């Protein structure tokens, strides 16, 4: 056998599929154990310098998008595809053969001396047999032969649908407070947050986050509105909009020598430079809605209700920190001639917009996989045939599929005698 033939045989073999599956399982485990998409310093802290170097060199920091992970999955797809193509003819032959009388071999159990084969078939709930002279053949659930094949097609569709989705999907996030109009990334869409509500239960736990949004194209007046909440996204202008998360924001007012010069909405975690002195930057670290100074852990909040807000801020000048403190609503930060205030604390909403044109393909793959598994596991293939002997009795044969000896036991009970053979699998 040439090397080429050997290679072809290997890549179309089940052995290769099993090796790839095991390697894929190991790769997934590694990817789940190592925290993904962190900085080099994070890995060096966690695993030491050498560990971090290995992680980055082997792309273990982004394992599920690494070249080797894609290679394993691609090989698996090629193997699945080739195996399925090569099996078609044999499956067609087996399907055709299933309804025909077969010369009994080791895959059949034999039951001689039967006087009423049709009665036994009825007692086994087998379909009426096909009669051909002194031969009877009754078979059912032939489709099961295609179960694994269908399942493999389903898995292929899932992988292809997922891969195409990953390559072509577009995803943006936009966040703001009610009344704000924001661009949705570079999609050409603009979104207005009409309202944002947090539904609370009596015990103050959050029941639902709901945002009312209006979406339109930059150059068009075709407005589409929807109310979105967690688990209830909306499809607007070809994108699906999700209520993703929330946080606190406040209005920042800056004045110079008593004259207002700037007013903006600042979300916690954002910074803003002073317009006429860009070296001066205000960073809003956090907003505490129900402020409480914990003597041990520092600033904290007693609840999620906006009853006693306080602002943790930092001020930088030319990249150097000038100070960091907690500011109460009535307090003012003074830097030279500038006065800075935080007011109107409120919740902002983070909205995710996504377009994945291949989700349907993965979904169909999932349904096909389920159908294939159901065919393979729960449609039981049965084939019972009988041949008339010279003495006027019949010899019945039961084909034992997939080492399923349970039906053979029923057959044995129905015939009332011990069968012979049939211990090997016909698959």
């Amino acid at each position, binding site marked *: 056998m040439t090397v080429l033939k050997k290679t072809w045989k290997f890549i179309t073999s*089940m052995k290769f*599929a*099993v090796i790839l*599956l*095991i390697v*894929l*399982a190991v790769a*997934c*485990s590694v*990817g*789940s*154990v190592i925290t*993904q998409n962190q900085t080099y310093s994070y890995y060096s802290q966690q695993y030491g310098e050498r560990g971090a170097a290995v992680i980055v060199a082997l792309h273990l920091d982004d394992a*599920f998008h690494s070249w080797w992970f894609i290679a394993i999955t691609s090989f698996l797809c090629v193997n699945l595809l080739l195996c399925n193509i090569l099996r078609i003819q044999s499956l067609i032959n087996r399907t055709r053969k299933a309804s025909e009388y077969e010369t009994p071999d080791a895959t059949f159990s034999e039951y001689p001396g039967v006087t009423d084969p049709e009665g036994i078939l009825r007692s086994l709930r087998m379909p009426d047999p096909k009669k051909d002279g002194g031969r009877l053949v009754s078979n059912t659930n032939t489709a099961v032969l295609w179960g694994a094949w269908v399942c493999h097609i389903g898995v292929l569709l899932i992988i292809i649908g*997922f891969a195409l989705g990953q390559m072509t999907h577009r*995803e943006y996030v936009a966040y703001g407070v009610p009344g704000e109009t924001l661009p949705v990334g570079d999609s050409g869409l603009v979104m207005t947050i009409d309202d944002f509500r947090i539904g609370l*239960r009596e*015990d103050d*736990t*959050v*029941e*639902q*986050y709901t945002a009312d949004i209006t979406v339109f194209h930059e150059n068009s007046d075709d407005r589409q509105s929807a109310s979105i*909440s*967690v*688990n*209830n*996204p909306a499809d607007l202008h070809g994108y*699906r909009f*999700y209520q*993703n998360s929330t946080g606190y924001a406040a209005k920042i007012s800056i004045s110079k020598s008593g004259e207002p010069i700037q007013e903006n909405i600042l979300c916690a975690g954002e910074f803003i430079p002073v317009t006429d002195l860009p070296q001066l930057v205000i960073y809003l670290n956090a907003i505490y809605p129900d402020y409480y100074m914990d003597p041990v852990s520092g600033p904290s909040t007693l609840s999620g209700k906006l009853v006693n807000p306080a602002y943790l801020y930092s001020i930088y000048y030319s990249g150097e920190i000038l100070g960091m403190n907690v500011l109460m609503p009535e307090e003012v930060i003074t830097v030279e001639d500038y006065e800075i205030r935080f007011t109107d604390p409120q919740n902002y909403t983070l909205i*995710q917009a*996504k377009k994945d044109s291949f*989700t349907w393909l*993965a*979904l169909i793959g*999932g*349904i096909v*996989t*389920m159908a294939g*598994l*159901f065919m*393979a*596991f*729960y449609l039981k293939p049965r084939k019972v045939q009988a041949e008339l002997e010279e003495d006027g009795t019949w010899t019945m044969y039961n084909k034992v599929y997939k*080492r*399923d*000896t*349970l039906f053979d036991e029923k057959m044995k009970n129905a015939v009332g005698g011990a069968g012979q053979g049939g*211990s090997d*699998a016909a*698959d």
Partner: protein
Amino acid sequence: MQLIESVLFYSTIGLYFVSMIMYFIFVAVKKDGVAKAAMILQCVGLGVHTAAIVFRGIAAGRLPLTNQYEFATAFAWGICLVSLIFILKFRFKILGAFATPITLLIIGYAAMQSREIHSLMPALQSGWLGIHVSTAIIAYGSFGVSFVISIIFLLRDKLSKGGFLEQHIPKKEKLDLISYRSAALGILFLTFTIITGAIWAERAWGSYWSWDPKETWSLVTWIIYGVYLHLRINRKWNGKAAAIFSIVGFVCVIFTYIGVNTFLPGVHSYK
């Protein structure tokens, strides 16, 4: 309502425990009547367990399938249900002696968890919750039974030297087949769990697959059982090797359930 649930929950543990002891006595004294009593106790235990879960649901005002305690008790319920089905279907009484300790271990883990009732966070308020988690319970229960049968398979030669056990433990070929049937049920339901989970994740988190540790380990479990199915086709690999793989698969199931929640927090880490 919670008090009733507590009484029913601890009664369940008591009933499963007595049932386990009866199964052990059955193996020791070799009397079929004892096995029958053990099975009846297990059935009663399952009934009381079902009532406990129902009362939990009434007390919480929702499906009781959202935290470690609730899932663990449902997981034990799933193993008990599937094992009873297999005991009755295959007249395999001795399976109870191996399945009830596993059921007790899982329900014991549930007893160690916080049993406080919390309101559902918005992401969990979905019709998919019931379908996704209940199919996971059947899948995990089936894998648990396959695991138990695989252990019996490996121990069979050591256990069944006497005539009684020889009579009550099916032949290795049949054990392999029953284990396969149970694993097959598990794979079908696990696939359904993963698909329904993906549909739900798409609606709740905006992505049907985001390599969250729970998702990833469910996939790892699915792959391991996929390998088991492929290896089982090969005659050289059936029997002992398949049994070992079924055991490895169940270790993955346990890691997916307990290990991931403990060591690899992600979006599935609901407390």
